């Protein structure tokens, strides 16, 4: 009897252990499923990693912006104080007022917009025409021509800059907006090759049938382009215009060269000039220079603000740009 009970007890114990193990296994499975998911990419652990990475990378991208904005509101005592790092003790608009009047902001902004919009518009129109030409027609030496175009993107502006400078000086284009508009009209200029390639790949994606049937109805090539291809290419038009507007707005290297000494200046250049003038008034390490840090940042915010506003209204186009234009096609 005793033996029997012992055996039974043993087997019951074994059974218990077995059940216990099963339960743990089940639990383990469930934990695994929640954390890692059936195929990893739907588990909780995975989600945590993704969001942690996203948040830390977003922090890297936003950090300078936040720094710029908070510090631009600081008073001199805030900048010097060790207690104030992120949040200024009060919203101090004085820095903005200073830059606003010194730059004559509304007027400077208008200039900057004209300086960016005129070349951007010219570049959009010309690259649409040129891109269509490359995309739709059998051309002699097409590959060579496109190779040359890509080369023009790689060549640094330092090479072409000095002959252009001479050329502009000869034709009295220096200090005039035409120094940027003329190359843009002819499909050259700042990043010209990129705009043409965007239109090129977009037109290649469009089905030919519509244009062919219009041609059968007797429409000429130009008519087909303006009334059928171009309206269909509206996404590409918007994108090219936005990109070129932003790039021309921010351009300072060539603008500094071609526009120096004229009244028309881009906003970043004007700010730079103002800061240089201001800092030269005060000796190194003086209090006024310390204050200048905040004023400079306020100026930078004012320079970027118009672009940021444009970006928030049009960011859908930036974001969808590459999908819709099929830049990735080639």
């Amino acid at each position: 009897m005793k033996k029997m009970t012992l055996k039974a007890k043993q087997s019951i114990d074994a059974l218990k252990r077995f059940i216990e193990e099963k339960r743990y296994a089940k639990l383990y499975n469930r934990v695994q499923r929640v954390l890692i998911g059936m195929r990893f990419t739907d588990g909780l652990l995975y989600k945590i990693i993704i969001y942690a990475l996203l948040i830390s990378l977003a922090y890297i991208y936003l950090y300078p912006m936040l720094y710029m904005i908070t510090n631009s509101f600081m008073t001199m005592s805030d900048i010097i104080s060790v207690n104030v790092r992120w949040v200024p003790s009060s919203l101090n608009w004085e820095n903005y007022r200073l830059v606003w009047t010194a730059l004559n902001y509304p007027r400077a902004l208008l200039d900057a917009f004209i300086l960016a919009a005129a070349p951007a518009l010219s570049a959009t129109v010309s690259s649409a025409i040129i891109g269509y030409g490359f995309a739709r027609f059998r051309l002699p030496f097409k590959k060579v021509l496109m190779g040359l175009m890509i080369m023009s993107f790689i060549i640094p502006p330092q090479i072409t800059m000095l002959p252009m400078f001479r050329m502009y000086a000869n034709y009295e284009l220096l200090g005039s907006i035409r120094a940027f508009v003329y190359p843009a009209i002819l499909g050259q200029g700042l990043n010209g090759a990129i705009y043409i390639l965007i239109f090129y790949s977009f037109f290649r994606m469009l089905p030919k049938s519509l244009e062919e049937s219009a041609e059968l109805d007797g429409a000429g090539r130009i008519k087909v382009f303006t009334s059928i291809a171009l309206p269909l290419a509206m996404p590409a038009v918007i994108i090219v215009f936005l990109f070129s507007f932003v790039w021309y707005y921010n351009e300072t290297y060539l603008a500094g060269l071609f526009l120096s000494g004229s009244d028309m200046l881009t906003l970043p250049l004007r700010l730079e000039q103002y800061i240089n003038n201001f800092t030269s008034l005060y000796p190194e390490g003086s209090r006024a220079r310390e204050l200048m840090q905040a004023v400079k940042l306020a100026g930078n915010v004012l320079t970027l603000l118009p672009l940021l506003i444009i970006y928030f209204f049009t960011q859908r186009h930036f974001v969808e740009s590459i999908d819709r234009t099929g830049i990735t096609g080639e």
Partner: protein
Amino acid sequence: MTNRNRERLAGLGFIFIWIVGYLIFTLYPIFYSLYLSLFKVQMDGADLLLTYEGINNYRATFLSDPYFVEILIQYVLETIINVPVTIVFALIIAILINQNIRGKGLWRTIFFLPVIITSGPVIAELMNQGITTLPSIQQYDVIGLILDNVGAVIANPVQALFDQILLVLWFAGIQILILLAGLQKIDRSTYEAAMIDGAGPWIAFWKITLPSILSLITVCIIYTVVSMSVFTTNEVIIYIRNVMMGESTPAITTGYGYSAALSWVYFITMSVIIVLFVVMVNIRKGVKS
């Protein structure tokens, strides 16, 4: 006129403005600067006085210019380190926002911000204020650790990378756009098939994702090298402009001729870097196939 010729003519009509523009604003300046780089150029009012120098300008860039070679080497090392970092981060970010995440629009808005904040003075200002480095990197003295363990030749560019890590990441705007578009084009069913065959996400990345976007990575590399090389705060181009405007005085000669020679040396250096990167990325493909 045959149909074929008529089409060619129409096509030429469309690209006519480009050909004209290319001749005036690209080809002519290229040859003119190549020509000038062989001369000592002096300004005489509005005219140029040319004295033939042969390759003396080029010799001077390497032999008697006290600054140029130094900043050029610095540029090469920095580019070689920064470009892969930019591409890897762009790829990571593109893969992250291509996942099934909440608030896609918000994340995209944040990560495409660099596309619009590319203005030279603003970036220069951020660099001055030391915002382009992350505080924690300085706090833990990562750089000191690296400096102790490797020679200065490697340590200096690495330090430069950490000093400007934010700046380097900010160059990734357009690249993220391009890579993201490429990722979205990959067929989901390819991944599903791979999963059924037992491939995890890690293997799927190397066997499916990377090969499909390799050509786009090449595009991104070219774009990154070019945009970094012509960016306003790049020291080499600042130096070239100063030489051209006669603001700095290198040993032998100033002015147009010498700065043209500098630009050509710079361009060739840049092209070599691009070719090296492109070959390196595509070697893998060659081995595989």
